[in-house]
């Protein structure tokens, strides 16, 4: 159990573009323990989504390695679920069909057991009663719950989340954060959570990683000095305010530099 769930060793990514090579990430060293919740902060375009795609096995690092549970990632794995910024549900399929979609897409058919499993996940994600609704009939927050339910369908060990709540309004966003913590505590997973919001990173994560401007590197890797369970008032203490101020300082320095 001491093995890292995710490990970046000197990992980098250089894209070939029409205007020459573009180094998005370079020399990233980072390890994430099993069932750890790690948030990644960084300026826009510093390669956060690229980091996530490399972990998911959607693109290969052009330097160094990315390993998951000790094995270098060469292709997508079943034990990784992805949640995107937009829920990107299938607009023609109802909530239940969207959640069982991984089964239908992977195996080409959906069993009764798959449906039962989907309904159970839908219920844990607070969507009971909405199984037959179409995505267009749901609010943004509800749609993202469906997105999370879909990512949980194959019981992944690792959940990769790319700014999952940034399209939501502030109140819904906070509520979704606590909802995610509830899910994570009920069924522990390794979470790599990308965000632009310092309070969101701090309230959710065990550890916050700050990245530099492109080419992105890890410039800070800090344990969040906050016990669990956490709630709305957790961030009020002066210690937390100082911690968030420190993170803000790191990010601003990156912006100016």
């Amino acid at each position, binding site marked *: 159990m001491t093995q890292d769930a995710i490990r970046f060793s000197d990992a980098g990514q250089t894209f070939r573009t029409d205007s020459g090579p573009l180094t998005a990430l370079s020399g990233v060293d980072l390890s994430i323990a099993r069932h750890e919740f790690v948030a990644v902060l960084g300026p826009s375009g510093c390669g956060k989504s690229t980091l996530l795609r490399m972990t998911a096995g*959607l693109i290969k690092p052009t330097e160094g390695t990315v390993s998951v549970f000790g094995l270098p990632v060469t*292709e*997508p794995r079943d034990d990784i679920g992805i949640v995107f*910024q937009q829920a990107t549900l299938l607009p*023609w*399929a109802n909530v239940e069909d969207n959640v069982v*979609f991984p089964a239908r*897409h992977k195996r080409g058919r959906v069993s009764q057991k798959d449906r039962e499993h989907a309904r159970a996940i839908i219920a844990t994600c607070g969507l009971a009663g909405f199984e037959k609704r179409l995505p267009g009939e749901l609010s943004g927050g509800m749609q993202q719950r469906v997105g999370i339910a879909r990512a949980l369908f194959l019981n992944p060990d690792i959940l990769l989340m790319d700014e999952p709540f940034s399209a939501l309004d502030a109140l819904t966003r906070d509520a979704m954060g606590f909802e995610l913590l509830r899910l994570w505590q009920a069924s522990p997973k390794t979470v790599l959570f990308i965000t632009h919001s310092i309070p969101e990173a701090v309230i959710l994560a065990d550890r916050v990683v700050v990245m530099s401007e492109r080419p992105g590197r890890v410039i800070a890797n800090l344990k969040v000095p906050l016990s669990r369970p956490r709630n709305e008032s957790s961030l009020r203490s002066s210690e937390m305010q100082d911690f968030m101020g420190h993170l803000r300082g790191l990010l601003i320095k990156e912006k100016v530099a």
Partner: protein
Amino acid sequence: MSAEADISITEQTDKPKKATHVTPPEPFMEKLIRMPVVLPLLTFVLILVVWEAGTRLFAVPSYILPAPSRIMGGFEVVSLSRWIEHVWSTLRVALMGFLLAIIISLPIAVGLAKSRFLSRSLYPLLVVIQSVPVVAVAPIIIVVLGTDDAPRVVITFMITFFPLVVSMTTGLMATPPELIELSRSLRAPVWREISQIRLPYATPYIFSGLKISITLSVIGAVVAEFVAAEKGIGYFIQFSTSMFKLPQAWAGLVVLLVMSLVLFQAVSLTQKILFPWSLPKERK
């Protein structure tokens, strides 16, 4: 797409919503005018009246513009069974050309959407083919393929297929990239990415292409009949005109118009019934 039985049937959940919406009863006339068909119909009747009155008042000769009543007379010159024969001949060619266009443009569109190489090599060629005036090529096609349905279907196909290829390709590429990544992260086969994600996503685009193509298919069939045919509405119009039987030719035109409209509505209705989610929100 047919494998996705659940994509076609969706619950109509807006009924209870309407019931809770209590509006004061509308006066009958206002309600009538708000109905979508009433206003265009009134306009149409008005145009007919003005047309009839104008042609009578100024004694316009029927070979320039026959009055609506003369055109109605033009229908009676030919027996119903003859009309049906003409209509069927044109309809058959239009539909076969349309179907051929769908069958051929689908794989081409998939190829263009999936392969950079194909879209770079094949697409410019398609544009060139599209730019060839079909009316000018039609006689050549007739000479090459003979005088039965085959050349007419090919001519119809040539007129209809390009908008279909363009709309299908655009639709297949309109899928959110995240869903393609989801598909790849599930290591699903490519054909399932196409059938379960890309094609359904392309449905609204495909239908706008189908709506353009179905009316073009009638034009294609008529063009083919102009060149060589002994049956069909296009042939009938050309024959009547050459005999200076203009009201009769106009009657043929009316039949063509009705045919186009019915085919267009059939495509619209298919979309409404089978793919209601693919319609723009407010028109649902």
